């Protein structure tokens, strides 16, 4: 096993009896560690505080602060809590061993000890401690990297929503773990047309984030402009097929004509859009034939485009399945019906408030069970 650090590890030996200390020192002299010694509990605490040894061999019976108390104090401070402690004492009762282990010691050696046994146990615990530190440092590094990815991702999302004639817009976006696979974007097209993309990369964390970033780059570098939503999805699919395997990306692209108040949409694996009809006072999932997600294989058929006419007061909602497939602790699923019901009954004027109400209801349902998928919603209200 390769050592992660070139700095010599240190072991602190604590015993009030100078002879014992001497014997311990000689026993461990050859293990390749720097040896520190303390004659009592106070000294042990003070040296630990300054030198942060990698292992402590601790006598129990000492005048002043005894070994149990030293251990208790070390374990109560986060900076020293992880240092492994091996108790070393003439006490051989099971009760004493249990007490020591309950205080957080990793091992217990009864005096008089066999030098070979001490060396073997010390080596074992140094190795465990080293591996533990390595795992923790890798975990920190990974979390840090994901956080950086997440920060980059946040920059890929639109900084602010555009002002669209007669169409009030709001978005809710949150990732489950640091980096996420959900993506939304809005672009201005000629002649008062607007393109809304909502997409969801399969999986989570780094792989999903890469796919999300890739989709963003492709979407924004579309050659020319198109108001045909099927062309945009064809284009994205053509390029994602080269890189996504074995993953994929669900997407819905809608082009809104703010002059005519019409929405034309194409759907690849994304949930159906929802619409609240002001005139009918009801919300439905808009029937909208689609194709399988992006990135799997070229489409053999033309991607169907569905057109919907919007009227004043109508509300148009697209979302990713992290919202409708949110679970509670009982294993129940939130479901599209609850989203529909809220869309039908919530009368807030501002789309932001409607989304806040939906998310509050989702959170109430989940009852503190964290989301295991990203959640994105985009809502437009026609004025």
């Amino acid at each position: 096993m390769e050592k992660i650090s070139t700095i010599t590890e240190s072991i602190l030996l604590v015993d009030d009896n100078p002879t014992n200390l001497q014997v311990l020192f000689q026993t461990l002299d050859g293990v390749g560690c720097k040896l520190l010694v303390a004659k009592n509990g106070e000294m042990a605490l003070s040296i630990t505080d300054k030198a942060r040894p990698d292992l402590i061999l601790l006598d129990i019976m000492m005048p002043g602060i005894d070994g149990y108390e030293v251990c208790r104090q070390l374990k109560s401070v986060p900076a020293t809590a992880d240092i492994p402690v091996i108790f070393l004492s003439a006490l051989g009762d099971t009760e004493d061993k249990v007490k020591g282990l309950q205080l957080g010691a990793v091992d217990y050696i009864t005096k008089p000890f066999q030098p070979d046994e001490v060396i073997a146990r010390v080596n074992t615990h140094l190795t465990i401690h080293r591996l533990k530190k390595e795992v923790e440092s890798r975990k920190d590094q990974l979390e840090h990297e994901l956080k950086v990815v997440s920060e980059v991702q946040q920059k890929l999302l639109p900084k602010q929503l555009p002002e669209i004639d007669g169409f009030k817009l709001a978005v809710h976006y949150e990732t489950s773990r640091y980096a996420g696979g959900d993506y939304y974007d809005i672009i201005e097209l000629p002649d008062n047309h607007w393109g809304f993309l909502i997409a969801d990369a399969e999986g989570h964390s780094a792989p999903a984030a890469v796919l999300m970033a890739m989709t963003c780059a492709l979407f924004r570098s579309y050659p020319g402009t198109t108001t045909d939503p099927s062309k945009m999805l064809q284009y994205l699919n053509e390029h994602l097929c080269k890189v996504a395997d074995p993953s994929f990306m669900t997407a819905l692209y809608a082009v809104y004509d703010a002059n005519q108040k019409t929405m034309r949409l194409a759907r690849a694996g994304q949930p159906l859009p929802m619409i609240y009809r002001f005139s009918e006072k009801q919300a439905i999932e808009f029937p909208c034939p689609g194709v399988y997600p992006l990135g799997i294989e070229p489409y053999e058929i033309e991607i169907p485009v569905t057109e919907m006419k919007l009227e004043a007061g109508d509300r148009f909602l697209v979302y990713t399945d992290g919202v409708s497939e949110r679970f509670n602790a009982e294993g129940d699923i939130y479901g599209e019906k609850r989203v529909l019901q809220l869309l039908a009954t919530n009368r807030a004027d501002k789309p932001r408030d409607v989304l806040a109400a939906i998310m509050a209801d989702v959170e109430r349902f989940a009852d503190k069970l964290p989301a295991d998928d990203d959640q994105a919603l985009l809502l437009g209200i026609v004025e």
Partner: protein
Amino acid sequence: MEIIQKEENGIVAITIKGRLDADSSPEAEKVVKDALEGQTTRVLFNLASLEYLSSAGLRVLLGAAKEMRRKDGKIVLCALNEFVKEIFEVSGFQSLIPIAESVESGIQELS
């Protein structure tokens, strides 16, 4: 999730029960991959007791379908409950992987 695999009359039958989601799909992926290795060219998924399927689960089934296509084999998913069937329809996956109403009709499709 519970996953059971058996082979009968030249058909590899894989039964998946419970929830096939981001947590359970790595295990399912491994079992499915192992099951499809070698000479296997006909595979049937019994999904009668599959309660929930996330996109990570879809990926596992998609992987199996791609592998079967590569080997010029046949695959069929059987006895999906309403919820799972709806996921297949809405996500467009029903055009990628054949679905049969029951295990019996699935076996017929493979023969």
